[in-house]
């Protein structure tokens, strides 16, 4: 990030390689279109550079910082227009633009994404719903509590349980691979 803050093109390329796909995918899910998702990627990288010197490793992973920045921009975009309900299932249908096969290194990312999707599929539906509302819908626990008609403590517990379960499941996957 320090190199990126110093306008290093190689650092910018590396950050793009690591995060553009996820931000683009986030945009497809939250904003519902290729053009809006591309705008989100552009806006996120500009904001990333403008705030690069503020990144503090002690506060969390770079990946989380970048994706939450993108999510915040997406939520702002949503608030500026009417948003149809989008779910993660809809994002599984590829956009109607041809994509050339990615380079070999993207196979690793695709494999990780597939593993993560498998992990999410095993979550109890109520936990998955709470997590999607919180992460993709930008809802607070209070708003989720109102939407789902559940106590606010239950909403918080579901999100927390979902995140811990995902981490646990992915750790198990890694252990199986190591055997």
């Amino acid at each position, binding site marked *: 990030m320090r190199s990126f803050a*110093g*306008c290093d093109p190689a650092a*910018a*390329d590396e950050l*793009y390689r690591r995060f*553009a*796909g*996820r931000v*683009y*995918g*986030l945009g*497809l*899910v939250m904003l519902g279109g*290729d053009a809006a*998702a*591309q705008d989100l*990627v*552009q806006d996120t*990288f*500009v904001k990333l*550079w*403008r705030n690069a*010197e*503020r990144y*503090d490793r*002690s506060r*969390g*992973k770079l*990946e*989380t910082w970048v*994706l*939450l920045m993108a999510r915040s921009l997406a939520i702002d975009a949503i608030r500026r227009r009417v948003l149809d309900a989008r779910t*993660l299932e809809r994002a599984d249908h*590829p*956009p109607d633009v041809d*994509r*050339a096969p*990615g380079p070999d290194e*993207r196979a690793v990312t*695709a494999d*990780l*994404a597939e593993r*993560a999707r498998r*992990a*999410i599929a095993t979550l109890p539906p109520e936990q998955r719903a709470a997590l999607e509302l*919180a*992460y993709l819908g*930008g809802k*607070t*626990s209070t708003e989720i509590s109102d939407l789902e008609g559940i106590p606010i*403590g239950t909403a*918080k*517990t579901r999100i*927390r349980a979902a*995140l*811990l*379960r995902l*981490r646990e*499941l*992915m750790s198990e996957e890694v252990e199986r691979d190591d055997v």
Partner: protein
Amino acid sequence: MTTCDDVRPLLPDHLLGSLPDEEDDEVRGHLRGCAGCRHELAQLDEGLGVFGSTLAREAPAELRGRVREVLEEEWAERGTSRRRRSDRPPWAMAIAAAIAIAASAAFGVVQLGHARTAQANADRYESVLSVLGGEGFRGGQLRALGDVPAEGSVLAYRSSHDQSFVLVFVRAPGLDGLGTMVVTRVDGTTWVPGQIAFDGDGDAAAWWVTPRDVGSIDRLTVRAPDGSALASARIRDV
């Protein structure tokens, strides 16, 4: 709110940035002193990363060029001064620091003096500090913690070359003697940069140059000569 049972249900919202400021401050305060909750936060962070990874899609090939062009425009407009600061050689930084120290002495900050006068002079530091280069200002208002009506401010300049400054101005009417400053970092660790001297009117000012990262400072607390907590400031980016 002080217990882990209170804080842990809030950690996901804290991670997602959706807590109200006051609640978020309390969570941060708890995390500073609780390794267990920090560990859980790290686990939640990993879980969030897993969820985020499911969203990955291959972006259109032309998007890379578009983002690169936009960044280059941004760098051309705003990046020159940032690059200039990072390219400055270390010896120039040392000279600039020496100039700033001499200027500080000239402004009377080093001397025991009236905090109000020194605080007014703080505005004049901007032209001096701009010579150093760095990553920006951080600061906060000191607010009284006890019965003594203390007030003041903290100003930190975040250098990119291990020569950051911190200025502290305090007024606590009637206080006299040597107090202590305690810095608390975001990870909960603390360090004592030194003492701060109150004159007979209760004014005090202190400053120090440090190679430490002032960006990690979360709070600065001033203790009175008798050891009691006098005032505290939350340090934020300006």
